[in-house]
Structures are given as C-alpha cells and as structure tokens.
C-alpha cells in the first residue's frame, strides 16, 4: 500500500514544481539541444538543483544529504520529467544508491559528500550492448597483485562523458551470460586508460561510450564483495528502474496534458476536435493507463523505502508500464497534434525522442515481462 505524502514531501514537490516552471521549462532543454552542447545538461541549472538539495535526497544527513528516500526523489524526478529537464539527477542518485547498498565506510566518506553537494557527478556503467542485459557483462577485471586491471567497453552510459565517479560492473570470473563472477568497481572519471566518446543520441542527453584499456584499480575500488556482484548490481538497477519510471511518469503526464489541451482548443469542422468520440475514447484510455502506471510507480518507490520483499517485481512492473505508457502517449501526442506535431518547432518530437531512450534504458517492457514471469516462478 502506498502511504500518503508527508508535509516535507509535499513542500519539496511544490518547490520542484515551481523551480521547473521558472528555471527549466521545455524551452530551456530546446535551447541546450540547439547549442550543440556535448555534456547534455546545463551546468548552472544543475548547480541550482544541488543547492536545492535534490542531489542529496538519497544520501544520509551526516554525509551532507537529507536521507529522504526514493519516494521523495521520485516526486522531484516526476517534476523534472514533465519539462524534459536534462540533468545528472538520476545518474547521480544511482551512484549514491550503489554506495548505500554496497559501499564501505571509507568509500561513503569519500564520495557521498561530493555527490550530495554536486562537486562530483556519479553514474552507473552496466550495459555493453544496445539491449539491457546485465548478465551478459563481459568487461574483464583481471586480478593483478592487490588490485585489478580493467579491459573492455561500456556502451550508452548516461552522463558517461561528464561523470567523476563511475560505478562499473565487470567480470572477475565466469563468462558472459553467467550471473556469478561479477564485481562492481568505483572508477574515477579521469582514470588513466579510460577513454570516453560522447554519443549524439536522439534525446540529446549526455550519453557516452566508455573504453577501458588497462585501467589499473586498487583493491579498495571494489564495491561490495568481489565475485558475487550480480545481486548488488540488480539492487542498484531496480532503484534506477523505479526512479527512471518516476521521471517517465512525469513526462508522460505532461505529454498527455499538453495533448488534452490541444484537443480542447484545436477547432475543425466548426468545433473542438476533443468533442469527437474517436479521440475522446483514446484520451480516456490513455488516462486509464496513466492512473494504473502511477499506482505502480508509487508502489515501487514506496516499496523501496519500506524495504518490502517483492521490490524486484514492483520495480519491473513500474519500469515496464512506464515504458509502455509513454510509448503510447508520445505517439498519440504527435498524431493528435496532426501536422504541427511533426514539426521540430513543436515539443511533441522532443517528448517522443526522450520516450524511446528512457524506454530502452535499464530494460524495456519485454525485458521486464520476462523478468517478472521468472520472479513469479513461471
């Protein structure tokens, strides 16, 4: 069951709503895209988000954060998702989560204050191919004396071009396809032997391919324990999935509301096109899907905060539904706007493009249906 929001959460959500409206409307994202910026986000805006405390929502107070949890972070991500605000907020939180689930005292002390105040940007580098497949990780981590040497590649890493801390999933044993033999490492963005190639993806965000050529790491760079990192990685990924689903829910809600406004204002045949039943029923079905998805996203985030035992299933449910929802709504956004929706000048295209990237990240609906069935024992 989802618990009602407390006063602190309502306050934070409202301040996020205000900030986004004033400082980060869709036009800000459009301007960033048109500037050809390769970072994929606006540094000044990110600084403000950090000052508002959003970068520290998952980080305990004694390390400079607020420790408010996943549901609270989800509220902010929903608001930033509404206007396609491009920022490291999600990636940063995923790195912080990695330390929460697997970090030792020293690692936390070193990174959490920096992630909380924005002096470092964090991210997770898991996938190596075009499809999300954590068990297929092949990037090799060879034991060398007291440390490790990393060789291999990571693809489509969000904030991969700018991150100062990269949580890297590598293989210290087994072979691609095995769940055992994975180890997670904390790698600094400026590590020797690491090269990064920013990608121009359709959503104009800051993804990059990373190449590791004999990257030397000390034993202290291991996050969690060596050799059995799959469960830790899965835990981090589930949190990433639920939080990304919150961003997608916000964006899908905005896509829907913008479209609904258009149905009420666009006049053809002498009346608003929203009076046509063919469009009314499609709008009502989208609304139904939105409500169902909201329940799933809130249940997943709440489940993470309360540490319920079916978190993996709830996170798969939330991510699968958010993907399918926004897929539908972004398509309908273009279709219901007609010709204007096909123009670059209209925002519909921006939502459509981000929708598909977010859908693929951390597993699309097909991935999560398969995972859900496996989790449920069929």
């Amino acid at each position: 069951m989802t618990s009602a929001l407390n006063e602190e959460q309502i306050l934070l959500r409202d301040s996020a709503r205000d900030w986004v409206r004033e400082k980060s409307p869709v036009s800000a994202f459009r301007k960033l895209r048109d500037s050809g910026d390769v970072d994929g986000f606006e540094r000044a805006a990110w600084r403000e988000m950090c000052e508002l405390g959003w970068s520290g929502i998952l980080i305990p107070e004694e390390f400079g954060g607020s420790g408010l949890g996943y549901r609270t972070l989800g509220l902010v991500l929903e608001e930033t998702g509404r206007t396609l605000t491009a920022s490291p907020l999600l990636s940063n939180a995923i790195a912080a989560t990695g330390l929460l689930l697997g970090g030792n005292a020293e690692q936390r002390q070193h990174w959490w204050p920096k992630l909380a105040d924005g002096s470092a940007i964090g991210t997770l580098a898991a996938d190596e191919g075009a499809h999300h497949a954590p068990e297929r990780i092949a990037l090799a981590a060879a034991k060398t004396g007291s440390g490790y040497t990393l060789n291999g590649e990571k693809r489509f890493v969000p904030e991969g071009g700018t991150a100062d801390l990269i949580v890297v999933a590598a293989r210290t044993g087994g072979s691609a396809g095995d769940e055992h033999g994975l180890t997670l490492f904390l790698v600094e963005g400026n590590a020797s032997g690491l090269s990064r190639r920013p990608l121009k993806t359709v959503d104009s965000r800051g993804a990059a391919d990373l190449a590791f050529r004999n990257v030397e790491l000390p034993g202290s760079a291991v996050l969690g324990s060596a050799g059995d990192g799959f469960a830790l990685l899965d835990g981090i990924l589930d949190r990433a999935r639920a939080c990304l689903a919150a961003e997608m829910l916000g964006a899908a809600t905005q896509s829907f509301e913008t479209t609904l406004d258009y149905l009420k204002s666009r006049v053809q045949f002498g009346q608003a096109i929203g009076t046509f039943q063919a469009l009314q029923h499609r709008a009502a079905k989208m609304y139904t899907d939105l409500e169902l998805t909201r329940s799933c996203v809130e249940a997943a985030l709440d489940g993470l905060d309360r540490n319920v035992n079916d978190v993996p299933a709830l996170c798969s449910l939330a991510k699968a539904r958010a993907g399918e929802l926004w897929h539908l709504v972004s398509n309908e956004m273009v279709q219901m706007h007609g010709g204007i929706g096909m123009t670059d000048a209209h925002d519909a295209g921006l939502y459509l493009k981000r929708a598909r990237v977010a859908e693929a990240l951390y597993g699309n609906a097909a991935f999560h249906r398969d995972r859900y069935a496996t989790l449920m024992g069929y």
Partner: protein
Amino acid sequence: MSDLEIFRAEARAWLEANCPPSMRGDAPNAADEGAEVVWGGRRATYENPEAELWLDRMAGRGWTAPTWPKQYGGGELSADEARVLSQEIARIKARPPLFSFGLWMLGPVLLEYGNEAQKREHLPKIARGEIRWCQGYSEPGAGSDLASLRTRCEDKGDHFLINGQKIWTSYADQADWIFCLVRTDTTKKHEGISFILFDMASPGVEARPIKLISGSSPFCETFFTDVKVPKENLVGRLNGGWDIAKRLLQYERQNISSGGFGGGAGVELEEVAKRYAGEAAGRIADPDLRVRVAAHRMEARAFALTVRRLEEDAKAKKGPSPAVSIIKYEAAKLNQDRCELMIEAMGLRGLGWEGDGFAPAEISATRSWLRSKGNSIEGGTSEVNLNVVAKRVLGLLDHQ
C-alpha cells in the same frame, strides 16, 4: 499501542473466535453458477448452517456494514478502522458473510438521499441480510441511454401506480424488494425520472429469468402491471431521481471494481498454462503464451494497486470519484483477457460445454469465458464508461 492497533487486536481476536472454520478459505466467485454464496433475504436457504451463523454474528457486531451508523445496523467504524477490519478479515481468509446489492448500492445512497423513516426502515434489514434487493434500471429501449427509460409511475393521490418493463434485473426472481427508476414526467428526459422502492411481492410484479450464451444467468425480464406503491417509498424529490441514479451507479462501478469480475478465485492462469501447454525448466514452455500471461498478470497487479489507491482517495474525499469509471472499464477488460487466456491455455479442453468428457474446471472455464463477454456491457458499457471519463474527468465536451 495506538487506538488503531488496539482495535486491530480486538478485531483479530473476535474474528478468530467467531469465524466458523468452514467460512475460511478462498472466497467463492459470486458469478460462478452453483457457488455457495449467501445473499440473505426472506427466502434464504443455508446448505451450510455455519454460513447463517457467520452472517448472524457479523451482523450482530454491525460488521456487515462496518462504516454505517449503529442506529442503522452498522458498526460505525472510522475509515481507518474499516480498513483494518478488512485487512484482518483477509488475514484469516474469512469469506464475506453477505453478498448484497443493498449493502453495496442502495445503502450508501439511502444514507445520502433517504429520509429518516426510510433509513430506519430499510438499512437495518439490509445490514442483517433480511431483505434482498434487486436493481430496476435498464429497459428494453433504455440500455446505454438509460435516461430514455419509460416505465411509467403515475400519481394516483394516495399512491403511485407503476406500469412498464425492466430488463437485466439481476436476481429479480429471488429478490424481496426493488430499487427502481421510473418516469414521473413524460415531458422531460433526465428531470422526469424518480427513484422509488417497492416490494417485489406486490400484485402485478412478474420476473422471468433470461438464458445467456453461457447457459444460464442471474438476469431477468421484469414486468410491472398496475403495481400500487405507497407514496412514502419515493426517495428524494419527485423528478429528482437521476442524480440518485448516477450516484448509485458510481457505487455499483466501484463495487464491481473492488471485487473485480471473477476475482481470480480458484486456479491461477500460470498454473493452468504450465499444466496444459507444457512446462520447461519451471517456465511455461510456449514463450508466446508465457509473455502474454505475464503481461496480463502485470496489468492485474497494476489494477489491484490502483483500486487500493483510489479507495484511499475515496475515503479521504468521502465518496467515489468519477475516476472509478476507469476501474469498471479496466475490470471488465482484465477479466475478459483472463478468461480468453484461460481457454486458450486449455486448448480444446477449454471449449467443453457439458458431460463427462471434460473436468468441472474445464467446463467452468468455458462458461466463465462466455459469461465474461457481458462484463463490458453490464453496469455501463465500456464505451459509456469511456464517455464518462472523457467528459467528467478530462473535461472534453459533447459533440454538437
């Protein structure tokens, strides 16, 4: 311990002590023919005496209608206490003591629109399961366009006189009383409708069961010929029945939704799929069926989470929101999908009609599948529910 936790402890102890053993376990599906379900009423029969005992005990405590005032036979629980009670009932898998249109639909509406005498007369009998109610809404010419109903109700001075016909009246042949929409003004449409209550034993009332594609059904055609009804049986004001009618539909749709159609009682889809379509390494062997079963189960989970979320909302706002129309729409779709997947998984074994050649569960799957086609028609068609969402939730206007 908080007051709520004290209440929980008390409720748990009372339920443990008072719920008979045979009243625990998976709830029967009310839509299943022959399922042992208690509907109460003057003509109630109890194959299992513990079913009657369980009803008496729960009614004595006011817990058949947990949130109604005590003076009307309820338990006067707060929304939080009622939630705790339902959690505790679910914990021991206690079956509902009473299935009742009176509890689900008429009661809430009488509390809102009925006068004091009507509440005192009808609510306690509903809560105790003494009177079984049926719903007189649809007519042969008034389905989705319910407000075009024509059953005539004339003012004869000291009484009303009712003439006309209703259809799809669930259990009319077994009900004691009816809550009925009637036309009291023929010059207006919505503003000419009144909401009235009368005894089904009145002279001039006749109910005939209707056979459906699934073989039988709870539905009837109901005929009224010069039925005399006392004036005090009018609920609300004359010609003011449409608002009450719509309110009751919200309760009906909310109720259909929280129970769901079919409810998922009995065999689980994935187990059927494994048994009939094969299992490989713990998985449903047919990958296409497996994916569609998973997609259905995920949607069902999303639906269950949404029902709970909207229920919490409704409690906070003291009444169902128009958003419950999405629930009725979705509940129908889900049950139809489930039934289709069930017979598909069974293959031709899921298409038996009767006889020894098929297991009872297989016949039941066939009959449930056929019956489920009505889910998107009864209680407001899916199309009407989408209209309601478009207009009342999304604010889209009528086509001119």
